[in-house]
């Protein structure tokens, strides 16, 4: 340091103002620095024009949506744990809790496991015929398979990781299929928990839902019985804006 001081050249008078403003610059940089944790909250503070510019499109939103659904699953699991733990206070709370858990089970808000079947629908890998529409799977195919499985006594159905609940919609958006507002693509795996034999029988009905697909290309459909599988909980929203609780029997 002494060396620096004794070698101070009057020509270096510019060092002081530059260093001061360099420190200001460092301060500004630190404020503008976006770390991984602060990113979501900072993105939320922007107005729409800036947001359109900043978010790197679908990838960013996908990451965000993934994080949010994971959080939702975690919170719901925690809620179930809490419900179960406070239910042991007396018999009425435990009955109430039992009803609650069964309702949640029926509604698809909890992960479930059991035996069942996995139906895999994939786009045809053969060269397309005159009607290319016949070589790909559509929302209608998935819809019919799900419908048939319910009819055959399935108790929980999941399509490519998306739990099918009362509000689930399966529709075609351009070239992709959307379920629970999430895009899925071929191969589509429909997993159902229930009696394997009955479910497989329903799938294989002659002239049934899979007949058309199979006549085009048998490899488009694959059915496997499963001894034990886990189907995850529904991770979508359960909020309602229009419906309210009503008394039964009144129109």
């Amino acid at each position: 340091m002494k060396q620096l001081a004794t070698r101070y050249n009057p020509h270096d008078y510019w060092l002081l103002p530059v260093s001061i403003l360099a420190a200001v610059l460092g301060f500004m940089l630190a404020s503008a620095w976006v770390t991984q944790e602060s990113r979501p909250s900072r993105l939320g503070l922007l107005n729409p024009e800036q947001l359109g510019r900043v978010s790197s499109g679908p990838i960013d939103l996908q990451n965000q949506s993934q994080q949010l659904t994971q959080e939702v699953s975690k919170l719901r699991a925690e809620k179930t744990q809490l419900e179960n733990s406070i239910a042991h206070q007396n018999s009425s709370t435990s009955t109430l809790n039992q009803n609650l858990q069964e309702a949640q089970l029926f509604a698809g808000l909890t992960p479930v496991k059991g035996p069942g079947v996995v139906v895999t629908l994939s786009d045809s890998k053969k060269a397309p015929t005159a009607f290319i529409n016949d070589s790909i799977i559509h929302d209608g195919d998935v819809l019919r398979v799900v419908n048939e499985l319910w009819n055959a006594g399935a108790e929980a159905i999941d399509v490519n990781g998306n739990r099918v609940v009362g509000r689930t919609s399966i529709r075609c958006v351009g070239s992709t299929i959307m379920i629970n507002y999430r895009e899925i693509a071929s191969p589509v795996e429909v997993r159902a928990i229930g009696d394997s034999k009955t479910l497989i029988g329903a799938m294989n009905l002659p002239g049934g839902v899979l007949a058309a697909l199979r006549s085009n290309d048998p490899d488009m459909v694959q059915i496997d019985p499963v001894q034990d599988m886990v189907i995850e909980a529904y991770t979508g929203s359960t909020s309602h804006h229009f419906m309210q609780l009503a008394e039964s029997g009144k129109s």
Partner: protein
Amino acid sequence: MKAILIPLIAVLIGLALGLIVNHPWNGVLGQYLAVASLAGMDTVCGGIRSGQEGKFRTDIFITGFISNVLIATLLSWIGDKIFIDLYLAVALLLGWRIFTNLSLIRRSLVTEWHDKQEKVRSAKALAKSSNSPLPGSISAAQDAQNTF
């Protein structure tokens, strides 16, 4: 060498200060702070360069810093309003200038170092040649006469 080191240390100090202070900046401002920092970087690099060249003027530097930051922010803001990515133009230009300034700084530093090496070498050569068998007894005037 200390020409870049001292401002660099100053930037690091500023960074550390900024990270320690918990700033509740509005997200809107934060976006523009990025472009403003770029403008600041350009001005600081320009300041170092002109300091190296001996052409530094404090008033121009300080007013330049403030005006560059403000203009960069203003252009980005207008660009947001009229849906033209003006911030891109600002970033491009500032980036270019930073590049140019840094290479000029590098140039002057290397020439400085090179000249210093030359000086050291020539000083050594001079010292060697004046090492005659009679150490230090010949005065400068006598020496001049002798060499004549």
